[in-house]
């Protein structure tokens, strides 16, 4: 393979990895607060739809992007309500959220199939876009790619260096200890879930505003689930999430290209590739290292006493 092939492939890897990156960062935030939310897929697709509709109606992609975050957070809020208020089972609630989101987006989105909406175009960054190799791969993307990259250190900084981040992590590790230290456990879990929902919504918005510009059914195509798996692969660290998201984006872009070029392999096998990789990655990351940064109280509901 030569540079003409590899550079566009890597650029495509970043594009198709970006929605996963948003969603993975969001799920890291949620899980660090001790809440497992399997509804990423549902929050992503409702976010995608909200962004698409807003962009069509108002013509402002930026507003559409923010709307997606808001809707993602609102859908995530259902999970928060079920788990934090009514102490419902987190796994069941998350699964329900995915089914709900996919169903809702299908129902509301069917009339929109095939329509287009104004979105984000490529924005070459001044000065750096001319750097050989790196320029065309990283610095000739749309603004949402740059925002996603900036999100990585931001989330890391919030979790590791801010007092609120410390509190949020404590709530995810040992909610009773956090409560005994005077921290409002439920408040931080709300923050984790809503923040995670917002980022998942952003991820969805990337798909409808920048990746495709048009609405199709099942736009997210399992990316939410890949994000859930990537959180484990990333050991709950934002930096590794970036690596993982682009790796998966790369595989997705690669199999698309292979299909386009035409091989003897059945396309169904190629389509399976990213999900197969997800399974592999989960097996290896659970096997290799016992000591990850998994929050100790992940998935455990917290019941404040009387």
């Amino acid at each position, binding site marked *: 393979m030569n540079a003409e092939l590899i550079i566009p492939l890597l650029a495509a890897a970043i594009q198709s990895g970006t929605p996963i990156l948003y969603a993975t960062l969001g799920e890291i935030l949620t899980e660090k607060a001790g809440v497992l939310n399997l509804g990423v897929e549902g929050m992503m697709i409702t976010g995608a739809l909200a962004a698409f509709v807003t962009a069509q109606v108002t013509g402002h992609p930026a507003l559409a992007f923010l709307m997606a975050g808001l809707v993602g957070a609102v859908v995530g809020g259902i999970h928060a309500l079920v788990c934090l208020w009514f102490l419902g089972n987190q796994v069941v609630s998350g699964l329900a959220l995915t089914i709900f989101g996919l169903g809702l987006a299908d129902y509301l989105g069917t009339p929109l199939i095939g329509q287009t909406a104004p979105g984000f175009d490529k924005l070459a960054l001044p000065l750096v876009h001319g750097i050989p190799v790196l320029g065309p791969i990283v610095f000739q993307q749309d603004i949402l790619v740059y925002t996603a990259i900036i999100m990585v250190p931001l989330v890391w900084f919030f979790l590791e*260096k*801010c*007092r*609120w*981040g*410390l*509190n949020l*992590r*404590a709530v995810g*590790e*040992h909610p*009773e*200890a*956090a*409560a*005994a*230290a*005077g*921290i409002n456990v439920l408040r931080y879990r709300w923050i984790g879930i809503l923040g995670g929902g917002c980022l998942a919504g952003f991820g969805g918005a990337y798909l409808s505003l920048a990746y495709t510009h048009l609405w199709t059914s099942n736009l997210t195509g399992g990316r939410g689930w890949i994000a859930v798996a990537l959180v484990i692969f990333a050991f709950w660290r934002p930096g590794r999430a970036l690596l993982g998201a682009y790796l998966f984006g790369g595989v997705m872009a690669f199999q698309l290209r292979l299909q386009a070029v035409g091989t003897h392999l059945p396309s169904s096998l190629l389509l399976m590739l990213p999900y197969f990789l997800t399974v592999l990655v989960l097996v290896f990351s659970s096997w290799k290292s016992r000591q990850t*940064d998994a*929050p*100790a109280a992940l998935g455990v509901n917290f019941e404040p*006493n*009387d």
Partner: protein
Amino acid sequence: MSHDHPLIRLEGLTKKFGPLYANRDITLDIRAGRIKSLLGENGAGKSTLMGMLAGRLRPDGGRILIEGRPRHFSSARDAISEGIGMVYQHFMLVDAMTVAENIFLGHPGGILLQQDAMERQVEALARQVRLEIDPRARIADLSMGEKQRVEILKLLFRRNRVLIFDEPTAVLTPQESKQLFEALREMARQDKAIVFISHKLDEVLDLSDEIAVLRKGEVVADMTADRVQTKEALARLMVGREVILQVDREPVETRQTVLRVRGLNDAPLKDVNLTVRQGEILGLVGVAGNGQKPLVETICGLRAPGTGHVRLMGQNWSRFFRKRRWDGNLSYVPEDRQGLATCRNLSLTENFLLTTRQGFSRGPWLQRPAAEKRLRELIQTFDIHPPDPLSQARQLSGGNLQKMVLAREFFRRPRLIVAEQPTQGLDIAATEDVWGVLLKARSRAGILLVTGDLAEALSLSDRLAVMFDGRIVDTFDADDRAKIDAIGLMMAGVTETARSAIPDA
């Protein structure tokens, strides 16, 4: 500050759980600069009372006065802001974070964390009260005693005036307990009010300025420490009847060897030799973490031995554990009765069947009714409450659960019993029961008693082995006065004969 007016007065405090009174009309004074002990058995209501003072539980009646003014706490936060802090039995620390992070957790301050400044402040505070600790260490890497220091520093850091300790020595080694007591006295000198909750008479007598005794939710005595006449009188107040603190051991003839460990090397174990015969109790004492755990796990088949020989009932380790798993030869009574010994959410019958299938299964089918019937008899013999084979394990108190485990294990008539900290966290009455059961079992089994409680080891054992740094330092008969006097030193690793006298037990 004057010591005449109490810093805190509890007035007629009452707390009910359903129809049961956990606390009834309790009135107590807590004074600055004094150590007040709250003595009582498990279930006497000590923890409930302190829960109300720490803001975790809301009283159903009565009031709390702080410096003469009534206060209402609706959460732990309110109590914290009044300077009342509690060191819980189960530490409230985040394992994945550092000492400094834990101490600063929930502490108001700027948005950004200043790691260096935090660590310096913690170090300075630690030095001031002589509780040395590395502020950069992760909690998961600390010993129990060190974790407790972090808890104390957490309270001191928030300038707490009242420090409540809920059974703080239950998890400590004797040395660590001694250090803790010194720190407590030091804090009292710095005008803190200390509340010490315990059921251990010696500790209470050793430490306290004032002693209040709780029984069945009510205060039965409240006095200064110098008014206590004897330990026995105090015990009688606490239990409500005569207590026998001595046990009578009838000698039993020792018979065949049921456990023989020879030259076992398997880090951290170093050249471990010991022998247990039927009819004797071998007390294995030592500070926790000196290799007892891996040794017990090896003997009980949870961990493969390294080099050396481990023979059970005359068979070597791999053969024994391959072939004879469920028959009555070996019983293990683990320290962790909630996790390793029982399943919280299973009924007592199911827990009984966990290790004891023989006689209660036909082909692939379990015969529950038969097991339930046998268990009913056992429940009566061992006096387990609630006496219902269908109640879940988590509904039982620590003492009753331990009796349940012992009942189950002894039902199989084992020839070798490994009992690990069998009375840890139990009150006097339950401890008496467990000791009695162990002594009775001795007539037909060899018992390896692993304990951190020297008094327990001395009252029960026929022979003693002292463990330090993965090694059996010495093994001797329980009537060897000279050796017994040196146990404390041996446990600390201070012995000139440690190397030369690796015993042939």
